[in-house]
């Protein structure tokens, strides 16, 4: 018997072949809908209006246009200021929730989710109501206008707060009680313990939160669109260049510039997360916050203030949408919900949003879960899997505006056989699935990795087809994660503006775009009403999700208990 030098190839069963095929399809899907469109942005940035190659001329022109170059400074300023404020507020709030014994933590947690349920246009609208020309709180600005940096920062803080909070809550809840006991026994006071244990322990969370907020602000379009006034930022520039002036080359340049901080932030964040894992060992003892009456009271008061601001912003939009004329005629009315009066799409746009959110939730969950399954538990194809894993992470670094732009360039290109998708609901669904792919993928991958590594091997030894184990075991075990992913897709599809605003057609206009249009047209009450419809829908779906998850855990608690 001579040992064969070539590696031995296994005969592949129908099952295995199908999985191979699916993995290749997934790779193609991600390549076609992520890599190619993004490549188009880069390509367009070096061509002029007449499709002539101009090298870096567009970039030079960008830097030579004072108003555009100015936007870079503006964007950075807004991002830095908002990030500083949000991080401090979110850290305080997260600290109160995880490290004190204050009452009402559940309520505070729930209230902090408010901004996620709304499009980022909503805080802008509420700020205009409160501080605008007829705003009752205008005096607080002492002569300054809400239209401009003040409005942008306030709006962005509202919009980014829950994102920072989520990261910081996780970072602060992974505390090892033994460290605190050791410090206390060594005579370290509370302040010393905070600076030597709490803060260092949360440092990667803090770094991560800073980067996430920074990226969100620099790429957000909703807030500056509504309350930016004459204060130009990069995200609104893209919109103006592309939608206003049809200057695709310049739009692509701004898009590339927008990609930069996100990519940097993303790389730094990734490095931070790598290091985070070692922080909590298996033997750590969870920290149970002791009662400290003074600290608890102060933190409670701070949380009340922060939560009240969140509720106040939402409440303003809700209230304004339900009265005749803010702030002069407070008679209750549903008139602003008769959208057809002020926007030609009327209620259709809301219907479109429901369809978009529903399709995105279904299609997105299917693609993401099946994709994560193939990568985490499919047959070994190390090369393709590594590529797919990498591609799945990319969307996190791509701002919605840039994605929208990329999709215009790619799908609107006459030579593209997928051109037919342009202007359909299909492209909105695709863009939204891709836009929110990464977090969903990581959720699915985490759930799948927690399953015993040998389920597939056992099934194979028992001659049970792969798909049967997938449906009988894998899916039921991952159902909570699947529900989370579907909710995430649905809510984000309801609230997103940035990518969709480039891609909608009159037939497929979404509710969030309608909010934007009405606001543009000065119909602020209508915009507030439509934004409220989005909030109500997101909240309702969220409640439904809570109910389903609860029911599921009741039904399955017999086998989940360990």
């Amino acid at each position, binding site marked *: 018997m001579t040992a064969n030098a070539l590696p*031995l190839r296994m005969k592949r069963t129908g099952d295995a072949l199908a999985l191979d095929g699916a993995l290749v399809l997934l790779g193609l899907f991600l390549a076609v809908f992520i890599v190619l469109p993004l490549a188009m942005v880069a390509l367009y940035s070096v061509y002029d209006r007449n499709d002539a190659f101009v090298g870096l001329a567009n970039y030079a022109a960008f830097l030579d246009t004072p108003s555009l170059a100015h936007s870079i400074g503006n964007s950075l300023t807004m991002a830095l200021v908002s990030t500083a404020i949000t991080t401090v507020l979110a850290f305080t709030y997260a600290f109160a929730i995880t490290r004190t014994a204050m009452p009402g933590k559940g309520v505070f947690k729930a209230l902090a989710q408010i901004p996620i349920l709304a499009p980022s246009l909503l805080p802008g609208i509420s700020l205009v109501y409160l501080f605008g020309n007829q705003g009752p709180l205008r005096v607080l600005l002492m002569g300054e206008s809400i239209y401009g940096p003040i409005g942008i920062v306030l709006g962005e803080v509202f919009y980014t707060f829950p994102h920072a909070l989520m990261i910081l809550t996780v970072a602060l809840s992974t505390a090892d009680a033994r460290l605190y006991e050791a410090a206390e026994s060594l005579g370290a006071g509370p302040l010393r313990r905070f600076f030597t244990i709490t803060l260092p322990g949360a440092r990667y969370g803090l770094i991560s939160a800073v980067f996430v907020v920074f990226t969100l602000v620099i790429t957000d379009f909703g807030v500056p669109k509504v309350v930016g006034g004459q204060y130009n930022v990069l995200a609104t520039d893209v919109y103006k260049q592309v939608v206003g002036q049809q200057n695709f080359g310049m739009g692509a340049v701004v898009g590339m510039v927008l990609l930069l901080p996100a990519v940097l932030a993303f790389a730094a964040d990734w490095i931070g997360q790598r290091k985070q894992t070692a922080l909590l060992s298996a033997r750590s003892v969870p920290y149970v916050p002791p009662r400290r009456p003074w600290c608890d009271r102060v933190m409670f008061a701070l949380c009340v203030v922060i939560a009240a601001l969140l509720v106040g912003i939402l409440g303003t939009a809700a209230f304004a949408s339900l009265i005749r004329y803010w702030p002069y005629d407070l008679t209750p009315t549903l008139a602003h919900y008769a959208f057809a009066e002020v926007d030609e799409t009327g209620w259709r746009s809301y219907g479109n949003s429901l369809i978009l959110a529903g399709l995105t939730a279904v299609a997105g969950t299917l693609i993401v879960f099946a994709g994560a399954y193939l990568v985490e538990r499919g047959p070994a194809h190390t090369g393709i899997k590594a590529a797919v894993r990498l591609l799945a992470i990319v969307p996190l670094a791509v701002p919605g505006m840039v994605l929208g732009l990329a999709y215009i360039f790619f799908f609107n290109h006459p030579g593209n056989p997928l051109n037919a998708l342009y202007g359909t609901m299909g492209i909105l669904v695709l863009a939204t699935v891709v836009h929110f792919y990464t977090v969903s993928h990581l959720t699915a991958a985490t759930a799948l990795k927690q399953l015993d590594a040998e389920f597939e091997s056992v099934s194979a030894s028992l001659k049970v087809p792969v798909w049967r184990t997938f449906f009988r075991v894998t899916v039921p075990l991952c159902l909570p994660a699947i529900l989370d992913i579907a909710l995430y897709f649905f809510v984000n599809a309801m609230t997103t503006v940035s990518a969709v605003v480039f891609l909608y057609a009159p037939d497929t206009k979404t509710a969030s775009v309608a909010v934007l249009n009405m606001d543009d047209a000065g119909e602020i009450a209508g915009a507030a009403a439509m934004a409220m419809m989005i909030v109500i829908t997101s909240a309702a779906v969220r409640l439904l999700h809570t109910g389903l998850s609860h029911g599921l855990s009741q039904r399955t608690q017999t086998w989940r208990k360990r």
Partner: protein
Amino acid sequence: MTATPYLRLSNVVKSFGAFQALKGVSLDIGRGEFVCFLGPSGCGKTTLLRIIAGLDPQTAGTVEIAGRDVSRLPPSARDYGIVFQSYALFPNLTVARNIAYGLKLKRKAEEERVRDLLALIGLPDIGAKFPSQLSGGQQQRVALARALAPSPGLLLLDEPLSALDAQVRLHLRRQIRELHDRLGITTIMVTHDQEEALTMADRIVVMNHGDIVQTGTPGAVYREPATPFIADFVGTMNFLKGTVDETGRIRLGSIHLHSARPLTPGADVTVCVRPEDVVIHRPGPVNTIDMRIDAMEFLGPFHRVRLTADGFGPQPLTADFSANLVRDHRLATGDRLPVTLPAEHLRIYPAA
């Protein structure tokens, strides 16, 4: 061994990049045999088992099961049941559904088969429970029943007992062995626990660094370990360093030992003797040394005794003396006594 082996491995190689996890393993296993792959962690036992199962492809070499070359066949085209260290029970299915997972029978027949299997593993009443409601030992037996349900020709067990308490482990050793004897199914069990291999196997395959270093019955592996590594890994062993003198005897310090076999003069050797083979003075002067008891450790049925002697060299000699012997001779720390290392129990290896 009979005409055709049930399982035949020929020159099986497995490489992970530049690293060779298996370096050309060849092995025959007879029908109905209970074989243990024994070796330290990382020596390639699991890798070999997974290749037999078709779960990972070998880099080179062939696997034949029941005379059929299955080298390139997927797991489902081979005929075996497997139990993993983690058991990999499906947590959302009841015990009965777990056991029936690989069955393709009519409902009535399936229920009957599951009932028989539950009786076989001695847990007739747990069919409706979920895995998380069972103890580790019970889960292990359910995994065994699931693997046996389709009546495979080969049973593969990867460290099936290593996650269990010592008590349960002892009990299950016997149960698995009895199950094997009752069903007559060819069984391969991977373990790094030499005691497990000694008590359960018909034949032990000792592995190290991706190679088979010895195959043999438990008695043979224990009494005649092929290398010092095996001597050390299986059971307890004294290692004494010495040199062969011109008369063919072994010199340890100022003491000379006779060997039962001829030796090359001048060679450096390692002399191995099991603690239980060391005896208190036997008639005849050969291999008897005056030694002193340095320490005694009471281990229930016997005492582990540390012996030293002037001129014996730096290494102490460990001996196991039965409780009776210690009582009859009134042995105590500090006593001197003549100790014999019987020539026929010495294993002599060239020094490493």
